């Protein structure tokens, strides 16, 4: 039986995985993937809460918007990463260190 708590557990695991990826990985693409995991965790939360607890459309609408905006954000993020790669020939986060005092 799939209940609300299973959905919440899965989304919590996704969230923690996202945080872990962002902290532990040094590859910028991996960090962007971590961000996607977190966004998907919250989209799943919205959908699950709507199905089991609050029977209104607001949660579904929120999840749809999250999916759309996550795509936009990934597009812009990847564009900037490509530019960074062309200039620096690296996608290692430690190479982004010109701007430190």
């Amino acid at each position, binding site marked *: 039986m799939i209940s609300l708590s299973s959905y919440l557990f899965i989304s919590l695991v996704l969230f923690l995985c996202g945080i872990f990826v962002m902290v532990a990985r040094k590859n*910028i693409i991996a960090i962007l993937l971590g961000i996607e995991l977190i966004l998907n965790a919250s989209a799943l939360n*919205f959908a699950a809460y709507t199905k089991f607890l609050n029977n*209104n459309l607001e949660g579904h609408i929120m999840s749809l918007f999250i999916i759309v905006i996550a795509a936009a954000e990934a597009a*812009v993020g990847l564009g*900037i990463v490509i530019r960074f790669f062309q*200039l620096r020939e690296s996608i290692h986060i430690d190479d982004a260190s*010109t*701007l430190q*005092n």
Partner: protein
Amino acid sequence: MHLNYLANIGRYIPEVILVLLMVGLIILEATYKEDEKNRKYIFIATLVGLVATLGALIANMSGKAEAIFSNSIIIDQFSTLIKMVMVLGTLAAIYLSRFSKDIYESLKTEFAIMAVGILIGGFLLASANNMLTFYLGIETLSILSYVMAALKKNDQRSSEAGLKYALYGGISAGLMLFGMSHIFGVLGTIQFAGVAKMIPTLTSAQLAILMPSFVLLFAGIGYKIASVPFHMWSPDVYEGSPTPVTTFFAIVPKLAGIAALIRITAVFFVVDSPMKIGWIGLLIVISALTMTVGNVTAIGQKSVKRMLAYSSISHAGIMLAGIVVINDVGIRSVVFYGITYLFMTLVAFYITSIVQDKYGNDHFDRFSGLIYRYPFMAVMMAVVMFSLTGLPPLAGFVAKYNIISSLINSKNYALAIVLGLNSVVSAYYYLKIVRLMTLKPQESNEEIEGFGFLNQMVIVSMTVPVFVLGIFWETIMNLAAGAKLFIQ
């Protein structure tokens, strides 16, 4: 269903003008050849559009507060006032981009287009009345800002600034959404008014979920206004971006974030409740930390832009301190602070940008002996620095005084003391520029082309409000007291 969108069109004309302006600019930009230098029609169109927006906002000022689009947007005097300040900031940033050498000539039109786009996001955020519009506003602001920070696309520093902005932005937006999803789950609504109704009557189990959720929600706003645990991106982005972009970032996204935070605080936490105590406690701690970290780190900086970035962090802290006092007086003093902050920041960035265009960098030493070459500009810079420190009779003093007095009236003595001490610390690095400009010998005799007659006049006209707001503030505040600024 309420299908009365067109019936309310009188209330959202400013937004409509901005959207049409953005689309129009994109079409207009396509008519130019790629290497065409002087694109003055785009500049004129932007100016006309923004002035029209300002006019529509002024016309909106007299209307009463109204929630439109099924309560997802609220148009009231508070949001209209903040929008007017943001439009003024955008106008000034676009005028600066016109003659700045920090942006590639062919990308100046893109700057104007994206500035208008970010302004639309700021409008949405300033009048957000449910979590969806709130999130959309933050993302419209952010996604365009990432591109704008990386506008100098052949410059390593600029693309690194964009990269850092995008990564930090994505992380904090994700944290905020996760918090929002639990708030929605527990309370069953995304409308701010619905959430506000539920907050005083929470069980302790609900509180246990909501407390961390609200902290996560704060992460999203805290990142936009660069408050302390989420401020790391700000100095890097400010330093790496072209100066007109930095000017824009220091004003529009920050004020939009402050407006959203004010609305959330004032709508959610009207009645005393455990949540309110927790939220106010969080704000107090964050505000004290933001001021202190911003000011202390600013001391050691060599680049003026980076120093201004840290100083804008500390100013965000001061505005947060005003938000702690949730009443009319507190909100009015924060709005007043925002207006004075606009003019002070603009003058400081204009002069820095012109000096930087001349010498190619913005180290403190480039300001040495400015008073011997351009006495007028040096005096303006000194005035603004005194005002940022908070010396009477300038606007910065009055703004700080208002916030401190509202803090003392609401018995937040500790925060008031921290604010006072921080002003003393900030005097060190602000007055350093004044000392360099007046006491050091000049490095060279060369002329700085940027200080033409027209630009000097623009800078002077932006410094005048610093005096006017500082001297006639009582009249202005009394006028503001007559109009009820915030209605919910």
